[in-house]
């Protein structure tokens, strides 16, 4: 019986974790399943984002021609960056369930990549909101000057 099998029984409580190897996280099997499915969905979102970004970029390029190259490239680069964060986070979370010795290492690594993903998303939102506010202010100012 492997260490993984000893940690938790299906639906039951995991062991105390006191005598667990260093770096091992006492997740139950149910919790491991949760982590595995989070990894699957994170991978799905990453792949779908890249696919959607590529199709959108293709359409923009066809519609706008060379003038749309800069915006399309920036948009595609941001999508690719976010997808890479999600895909690597998914890979780390998958390793938590697949290995025994370095659970903590992979868990923190996965959470760090998720942090990078949400931090980048948050910064993009803030930039987008700031630009939207600036545009609204510009339009209002132009309207008042006329």
């Amino acid at each position, binding site marked *: 019986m492997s260490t993984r099998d000893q940690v938790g029984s299906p639906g039951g409580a995991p062991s105390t974790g*006191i005598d667990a190897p260093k770096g091992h996280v006492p997740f139950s099997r149910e919790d491991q399943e949760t982590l595995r499915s989070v990894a699957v969905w994170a991978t799905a979102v990453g792949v779908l984002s890249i696919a959607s970004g590529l199709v959108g970029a293709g359409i923009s390029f066809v519609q706008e021609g060379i003038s749309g190259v800069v915006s399309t490239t920036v948009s595609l680069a941001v999508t690719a960056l976010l997808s890479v964060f999600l895909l690597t986070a998914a890979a780390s979370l998958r390793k938590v369930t697949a290995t025994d010795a370095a659970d903590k290492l992979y868990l923190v690594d996965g*959470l760090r990549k*998720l942090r990078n993903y949400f931090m980048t998303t948050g910064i993009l939102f803030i930039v987008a909101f700031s630009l*939207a506010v600036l545009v609204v202010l510009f339009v209002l100012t132009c309207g008042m000057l006329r």
Partner: protein
Amino acid sequence: MSENPYAPPPQRHDDAVVPLAGGADGGVLQLADGDWTTIYSLTRWMRIVFGLQIAGAILIALVLAATFTSTSIFDAAALAPYKHMLPLVMALVLVMVAYLVVGSIFLRRSAKQLHQGTADGRPRLLAAGFRSLRVYLVIYALYEVTNLASNLYRAFTRS
């Protein structure tokens, strides 16, 4: 005295494994200070994204309200070239609002559970945080599928 769920946990020594009294799952999770900083940063950014997504949903609702109340936008002649895309656009907007509102609620719940799970060293609460995160990811995947379908539709109707 009410406890702040987002307050940093008390400092612990990395190698000291101390079972928590009253822990339902029995298992404990000990993290180094650096690891804790990462998770605190993650949950803080998750809450920031939650706030921004809710603000985005309100903004979209305001734009939609302004669109529907504007008579000039409802000019049939102006809408005619885009009429065939209307159901897809409406589906995209609905899924986007669902993603921004429902997804955000689960994102916030996930941030709270991940924070509390690591602060208390409870793997089961940490897993609950991942379950909430999974709901957020499922809704996000649904949004991406709709977005992809919309893009493909645009691509094929042009050709």
